[in-house]
C-alpha cells in the first residue's frame, strides 16, 4: 500500500515536471526566465520544441545558390542549386534534406558548415579527381527574389516564376 502510494506520488511529480517543461519551452508567452530554466533539460531529454511555423511572419524571399569553383589548375566550374518548382514530387521528397540544408543556412555568413560544403562541391564538380578540393577556391553566392509586399496591388499570381534579380556573396572558402 505504501509502495503504491509512493509510486503514485513519484509518477505525479514526473507528470508535473514534464508538463512544466513542455509548456514553458513551447508557449511564447511563458516567462523568459522560466523558459531559460527548463530549456537545458528539455533539449537534453528530447522535449525541446519551438513551433514558429511560418510565424510570427512567413519568409518573403525565394532563393537559389550558386557556387563558383576555381581549381588549383585555374580551371573553373559552376554549381547551381535545384530549381525547386521544376522538380517532381518524388524529387522534392528525396531532396528534402538538401533543401533544408540550404534553407537553414542561407543567412549564416560565418557558419562552420561552409568549409565542408565547399569541399564537397569542389569534389562534386570534378568527380574523377579525388584531390579536387585541394587549394581550390569556392565562392558561394545567394541569388534571391523578394516577394513584393502584399500591399502592392494587383497581386502577382503565385504561379508566376520568381525572377532572381538580387545576389550577394555568402562566403568565399579557400580550401587548404
Amino acid at each position, binding site marked *: 500500500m505504501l509502495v503504491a502510494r509512493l509510486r503514485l506520488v513519484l509518477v505525479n511529480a514526473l507528470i508535473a515536471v514534464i508538463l512544466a517543461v*513542455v509548456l514553458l519551452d513551447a508557449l511564447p*508567452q511563458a516567462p523568459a526566465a522560466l523558459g531559460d530554466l527548463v530549456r537545458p533539460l528539455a533539449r*537534453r531529454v528530447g522535449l525541446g520544441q519551438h513551433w514558429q511555423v511560418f510565424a*510570427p511572419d512567413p519568409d518573403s524571399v*525565394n532563393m537559389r545558390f550558386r557556387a563558383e569553383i576555381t581549381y588549383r589548375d585555374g580551371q573553373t566550374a559552376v554549381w547551381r542549386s535545384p530549381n525547386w518548382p521544376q522538380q517532381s514530387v518524388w524529387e522534392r521528397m528525396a531532396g528534402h*534534406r538538401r533543401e533544408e540544408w540550404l534553407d537553414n543556412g542561407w543567412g549564416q555568413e560565418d557558419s562552420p558548415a561552409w568549409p565542408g560544403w565547399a569541399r564537397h562541391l569542389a569534389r562534386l564538380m570534378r568527380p574523377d579527381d579525388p584531390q579536387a578540393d585541394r587549394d581550390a577556391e569556392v565562392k558561394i553566392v545567394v541569388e534571391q527574389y523578394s516577394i513584393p509586399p502584399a500591399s502592392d496591388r494587383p497581386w502577382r499570381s503565385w504561379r508566376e516564376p520568381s525572377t532572381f534579380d538580387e545576389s550577394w556573396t555568402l562566403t568565399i572558402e579557400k580550401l587548404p
Partner: protein
Amino acid sequence: MSQSEGYSLVAAWQALARGWNRFFHAPQDTRVCAAVRIAQAAVLLVNLAFLYPDLNLWYTDGGVLPSAASREMGDPFGWSLLWHLPATRGVVHACFWVLVGHTVLLLLGFCSRINAMAVLVWLISFQNRNEQILDGEDFVMRVILVFLILMPGGWCWSVDAWLRRWRSPIASASDSPWQPAWGLRLLQIQMATIYFSAGLWKAAGASWIDGTALYYVARLDDYFGKFPTPAFLFDTPWLVALITWSVVLGELLVPLFIWFRETRRLCLVAAILFHLANEYTMHLFLFHWAMLAGWLAFVRAEDFAWLAGRPRSNSALPLTSDL
C-alpha cells in the same frame, strides 16, 4: 457551507487532486497507444528510408559537415553519440542500421518502451549530428517518442501482447485494453500545445492579423505548389484573408475544444483536414504525417464505429476519463 464563509482550501485541493487523478490515472484505451506507436514507427521508417542514400553526405567527416564543425554549430545543450564515434562510413552506417532495427522492433511492439527509448537516443544522435538539415517533422517525431516511452504502447497489437498471452494463456482482467496510460494523456497535452503555441506565435505576426500571411506562403517556391491548386485561391485577397484567419483561429481553438466530448470529434476532423490540405498543397516532407500520428492520441474506439456508421460497441469500458 455558505459562500459568504469562503471556500475551503482543503476541499479545493482535494477536488483538484481528484480531477488530476481522474484525468491522468483513469484507464485509457491502450489500442490508441498502439496505434500511435505503429503510425509513429512507420513515419520514422519512411524518414530513415529517405535519409539512407545521403548518410555519407550528412554524417561522415568526408561529407559536408565534419564532426568538429557539427559540435561547434550545435545546440549548447545538445548531445550526440555520433560525436563520440569515428565519423567514418562504416560506423555511421552501422549506427544507422541499429536505429532502423530498433524502429522495426518498435513497429512490431517488441519491448516497446525500451525500443522507443533506444530509437529516441539514436534519433537525437543523428539529428544533433547535423542540425542544418532538420525541419518541423524532426521535432514532432522526437517529442512523440518521448511519450511513447511513457505509455503502454505495446499492450495491444504487439509482440509484447502476444508474448504475454503465450506466457499466461488464461484470460484475465489484466488482458483488458483499458489500462492506466498517463503517457497518452501527456501526448494529448503535447499535441494541443503544438497547435496552441503555433497559433500564439502567428497571432503575434502582423501578416497573420491583416490576413496576408498566406499570400507570402503561397509564393515561397520551395514549399508551395505540390499538387494542382486553383490559382484564384491564393490570388484573391479576400479569400487569402479568410484562409489565413481560419488557420490562426483553428490553431487556437482546436487545442481548447478537443477536450470536450461534444466538440472532440469536430476538432479531430478539422485537424485531419487541415493536415491533409496542407499535405496536398505544400512540400513539407513528413511533417503532416508525423502530426497525424500524434493526433491519433485523441481517437477513441467508437470513432471507428462512427465512421463505419455503426452504433458504439458495448465491449469498451465506460469512458470514465471523459471530461
